[in-house]
């Protein structure tokens, strides 16, 4: 490794159980302070609604899906989750900087080209984005935060995300192993 890791010393990553306790503590703090857990896809939805609103304001107001986020002149970017995701960006960057992991890189299996990896990432992202709206939240907001409050929705979403990924893993193995 070219750079020194200022967080864990000689190990590349933090012990996963320690990192999990750290993440769980942040999640608990979020509940204690705000009454809600963490999220990610909600902030992306805000960005999409804002963009659609700039392009076609009347259409956005009339839409059953977008309309509720902009009623009464509300700005969808003025949301708790948008600021939280900006924090994720900075927090991830700080961690990467301290651990010596800041590099432009397309990570892919030697079986596939970088170009194919990018195409698959776009398709996977589109599926995840679509599914996160259908399921009212992603791994952070629905599965992790949902499970922490013991909500049935959280457990069901978690099992359906991971169950499906396991079920289809065999068919996509060439892309990863």
């Amino acid at each position, binding site marked *: 490794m070219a750079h020194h890791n200022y967080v864990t010393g000689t190990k590349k990553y933090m012990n*996963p*159980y320690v990192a999990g306790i*750290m993440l*769980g503590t942040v*999640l*608990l703090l979020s509940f*204690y*302070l*705000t009454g809600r857990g963490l*999220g*990610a896809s909600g902030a992306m939805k805000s960005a999409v609604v804002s963009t659609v609103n700039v392009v076609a304001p009347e259409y956005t107001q009339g839409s059953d*899906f977008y309309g509720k986020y902009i009623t009464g002149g509300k700005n969808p970017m003025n949301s708790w989750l*948008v*600021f*939280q*995701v900006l*924090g*994720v960006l*900075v*927090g*991830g960057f700080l961690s*990467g900087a301290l651990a010596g*992991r800041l590099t432009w890189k*397309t*990570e*892919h*299996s030697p079986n596939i080209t970088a170009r194919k990896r990018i195409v*698959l*990432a*776009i398709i*996977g*992202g589109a*599926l*995840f*984005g*679509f599914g*996160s*709206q259908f*399921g*009212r939240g992603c*791994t952070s907001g*629905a*599965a992790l*935060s*949902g*499970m*922490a*409050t*013991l*909500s*049935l*929705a959280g457990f*069901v*979403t*978690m099992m359906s995300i991971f*169950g*499906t*990924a396991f079920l*289809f893993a065999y068919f996509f193995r060439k892309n*990863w192993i």
Partner: protein
Amino acid sequence: MGPIIPINDISMEINFLIAFLVGLGFGFALEQAGFSSSRKLAGMFYGYDTVVLKVFFTAAITAMLGLVFLNYFELIDLGVVYINEYYIESAIIGGVIMGLGFIVGGFCPGTSVCAAAIGKIDAIAFLGGSFLGILAFGETYPLWENIYMKNYLGGLKLSDAVGISDGLLVFGVIAAAVLMFWIGEWAEKRFGRPDITKEI
């Protein structure tokens, strides 16, 4: 008494500052665990790296135990804490589509932001794709509206659905997690891929 912000009258600026700081911790923890690497995340589904399982369940247990104890000592009003609303069909269908997105794309929305922050180009592509997916849902919403709103059960807790106490459910989740951690550690030896682990 928590939750602090909904109970007290906190200004929007402070609220957003707290959001940013909470996100900072979230992103830092994800990146430290190695969630900024798609090949590390995908290792979960092939057994060579089960960091997803370990971090996800340790975090969930920490937070659920914390909430149970805060409630027990009357430090938080769980009536004000948001419980995810359960719509049977949409939770399952959404989860299935997300699971497919996970194995194809290698990230989830939160981890893609974290990985993009350290320069992973595949994560930036995933992020771009997720905007397209959300837009696609928004544009085709009338097609899904019926099934999306079907079978609403409200903010239902699993403990109430099966008729056990919250504490007993948390205990059960911890027991299940310990068993899964053990399987995870075994899988990493059984399906180990030193060639991949060395690179990620």
